[in-house]
């Protein structure tokens, strides 16, 4: 952890020194262009945080940049003067942008909004902004711009201010994306649904991020107008917003460095070449963009980095160094002190889960029809039935209160109608999906960390090396052999290992009702037995209520206390294991095939 801060401090110091020294080697013209590019790069960083890390494609960051430009310009042109008032205007600009950003986020990030929807909302925003400026007449300067009485600073001073600001924002962004909370951003990009089922309020997180990124873009705009001494509507229009996306994509999204270098590179070269070859230059940028999208879809910087690392490896010595480094950073898991003996809730005897007349239709297809079901603590309820009987749909109706078409579902006595998955998690329900659902781009440890974030909020600046997990989750990690693989990306795990990881993730939520959809599919017999013992233990010692879908009747027999047979959306049998498992009905519809 200390090493991380030391690294950040060293790099920051080196960059600051380079910044301080560069005016002595750069001429005024170069400094002028670079100062402008630095301000733009700050806005590009916010695009990268939103799009590269969190997966929210936004064309609207220019509007927030524009809010910064015009708030300060209007303030200085009509109302205030002096350095203190200017600082005040900048703060107001950031606050206004944050408000607008939060509003846009609120509109764009409701549950189940598709990513395209977000792109369209953010595309509309700069259009609206430009219209407002253009229709402002003499007050906003309309299309001819608004000159302001800005303080006079030399080009060299502006170079330092813009560079310093960029460095500050870049370091801040770096700290965020490498922090524990930064892992959550990536998790949202990778699989937002899984995040919701881990109890994370992803919409709120995205709205908060949007507000912060808007404020930062406005900060860049506010300083930029002081530097440019005139406001113009094209700093808030949609083509500027799109350019930011292009710079980010060219440099390499999700890398921070890529968008910064992309912005600086394109702006610098286009200023130098654009003077001599104005049209050819635009054509060249267009071609470069197409080439990068086709041949280096990751962007230029990641392609360079992977090329370099390949080169270094071919020189032959890195393997051992990489290994050595991963040992230094060895992650570890700790058991959470088990204080939840007291947390065992009062309603120990009543059913923790109750379904009354639950039905579900997809159009004309009736998937569930009048299902009544109860489950108590310490019970393992096996749900069997042929393919298409509605088993997964039944679990879905318990994990998401918006799923059922009619009927009522109660968890711990509370009705869940209309509650989204993240609220159901808060009531104690957690669901393991049928196909393993982990975050492929994150390491095993980070997947567990994201799963744990609902209980222990993740820090937006610290990067912890250790993670405390509740006993059962830790046990699941141990028996499935994941312990030595904590630093591997989850995407590299085999199918079975992903199954085990997802089980550990849902157990990290400390649920009272655990929904398992074929938890042992794709596992070998021994792995199956290991998971089986974990599950039995959960019901016995931790008094969890387990609902388990399984096709493997032997496995069901081994761990269930009760068995439910579902067929064509209805419960046909519900009773103690021994009675139901050996019934004629199970044999005919399930093993024999045709009812």
């Amino acid at each position, binding site marked *: 952890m200390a090493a991380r801060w030391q690294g950040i401090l060293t790099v920051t110091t080196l960059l600051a020194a380079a910044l301080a020294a560069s005016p002595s080697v750069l001429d005024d013209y170069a400094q002028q262009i670079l100062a402008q590019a630095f301000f733009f790069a700050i806005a590009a960083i916010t695009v990268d945080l939103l799009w590269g890390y969190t997966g929210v494609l936004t064309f609207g960051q220019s509007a927030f940049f524009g809010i910064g430009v015009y708030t300060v310009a209007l303030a200085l042109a009509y109302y205030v003067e002096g350095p203190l008032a200017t600082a005040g205007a900048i703060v107001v600009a950031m606050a206004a942008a944050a408000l607008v950003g939060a509003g846009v986020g609120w509109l764009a990030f409701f549950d189940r909004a598709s990513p395209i929807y977000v792109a369209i909302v953010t595309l509309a925003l700069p259009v609206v902004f430009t219209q407002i400026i253009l229709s402002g007449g003499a007050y906003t300067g309309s299309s001819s711009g608004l000159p302001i009485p800005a303080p006079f600073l030399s080009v060299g001073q502006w170079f330092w201010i813009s560079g310093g600001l960029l460095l500050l924002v870049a370091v801040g962004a770096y700290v965020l994306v490498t922090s524990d909370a930064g892992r959550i951003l990536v998790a949202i990009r990778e699989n937002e649904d899984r995040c919701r089922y881990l109890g994370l309020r992803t919409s709120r997180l995205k709205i908060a991020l949007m507000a912060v990124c808007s404020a930062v873009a406005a900060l860049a705009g506010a300083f930029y107008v002081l530097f440019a001494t005139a406001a113009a509507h094209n700093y808030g229009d949609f083509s500027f917003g799109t350019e930011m996306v292009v710079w980010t994509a060219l440099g390499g999204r999700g890398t921070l460095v890529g968008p910064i270098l992309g912005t600086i590179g394109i702006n610098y070269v286009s200023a130098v070449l654009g003077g001599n070859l104005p049209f050819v230059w635009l054509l060249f940028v267009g071609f470069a963009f197409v080439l990068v999208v086709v041949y280096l879809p990751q962007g230029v910087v990641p392609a360079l980095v992977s090329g370099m690392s390949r080169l270094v490896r071919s020189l032959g010595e890195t393997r051992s160094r990489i290994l050595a480094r991963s040992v230094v950073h060895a992650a570890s898991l700790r058991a959470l002190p088990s204080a939840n003996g007291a947390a065992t809730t009062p309603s120990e005897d009543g059913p923790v889960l109750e379904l009354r007349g639950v039905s579900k239709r997809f159009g004309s297809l009736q998937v569930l029809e009048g299902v009544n079901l109860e489950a108590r603590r310490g019970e393992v309820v096996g749900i069997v039935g042929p393919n298409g009987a509605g088993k997964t749909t039944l679990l879905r109706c318990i994990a998401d209160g918006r799923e059922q078409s009619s009927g009522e579902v109660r968890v711990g006595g509370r009705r869940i109608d209309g509650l989204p998955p993240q609220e159901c998690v808060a009531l104690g329900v957690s669901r393991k999906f*049928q196909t393993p659902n982990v975050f492929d781009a994150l390491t095993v440890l980070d997947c567990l960390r994201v799963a744990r974030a609902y209980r222990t909020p993740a820090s937006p600046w610290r990067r912890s090396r250790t993670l405390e997990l509740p006993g059962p989750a830790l046990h699941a990690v141990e028996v499935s*052999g994941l312990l030595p693989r904590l630093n591997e990306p989850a*995407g590299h795990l085999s199918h079975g290992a992903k199954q085990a990881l997802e089980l550990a993730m849902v157990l990290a939520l400390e649920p009272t009702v655990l929904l398992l959809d074929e938890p042992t599919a794709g596992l070998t017999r021994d792995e199956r037995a290991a998971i089986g013992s974990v599950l039995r233990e959960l019901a016995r010692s931790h008094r969890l209520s387990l609902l388990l879908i399984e096709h493997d009747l032997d496995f069901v027999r081994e761990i269930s206390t009760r068995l439910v047979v579902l067929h064509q959306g209805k419960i046909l049998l519900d009773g103690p294991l021994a009675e139901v498992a050996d019934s004629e009905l199970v044999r005919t519809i399930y093993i024999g095939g045709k009812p």
Partner: protein
Amino acid sequence: MIAIQALEGGYGESPVLRGVALDVSRGEIFAILGKNGMGKTTLLKTLMGLLPAKKGRVELLGQDVTGWPPYRITRLGVSYVPQEKSIFQDLTVEENLRLALRDGASFDARLEMIASWFPVLKARLQQRAGTLSGGEQKMLLIGRALLTRPRLILVDEITEGLQPAMITTLTEVLAEERRAHRLTVVLVEQNVGFALALADRYAVLKGGAVVETGRASEAGAREHVERYLVI
């Protein structure tokens, strides 16, 4: 039919396959077994061109396909049934099936063939594939793969999530296709019982290499294989 020599490959920098060598002949049903994480899925994906082969050679249906993109391998007459349910969620069942064929003329006849194996698919022809249950999606996957009358089919854990009766049907379907059209089948399986009942020969992968091959009908084959599956 299939000849794999000294094949190495994997994801990114981490090697998974470390020198796999295998030969499968035409009309054979071949099972690839082993614990999780031993490279079974990686092997199928590398054969199919979905992952790059770092070293070695892959020959399918008499052609050296090393380095070929997946679509060219498909056009040779190779079908792949991945473990993930990679169907087009927003298209109907029928559209999912139609997409597999490059010419539509034979669709109706082939559809009847699929329907005789999996009646539920025919009943749901106009339904959005994403609304099928997990097991039904598996049926759609295998149906779509067989619709093209492939010469070679690579199947990754098809029995996962299927009810026992459906596994029996599947055994019959694959055996019949092999008998009637000399289809070659390569199976990756955790369900050792199913795999050995259907396959002619098997190989066990461990640490990214073949450590054992044998005939599925040999006495004690199952015990033999399961030795390798113990943790």
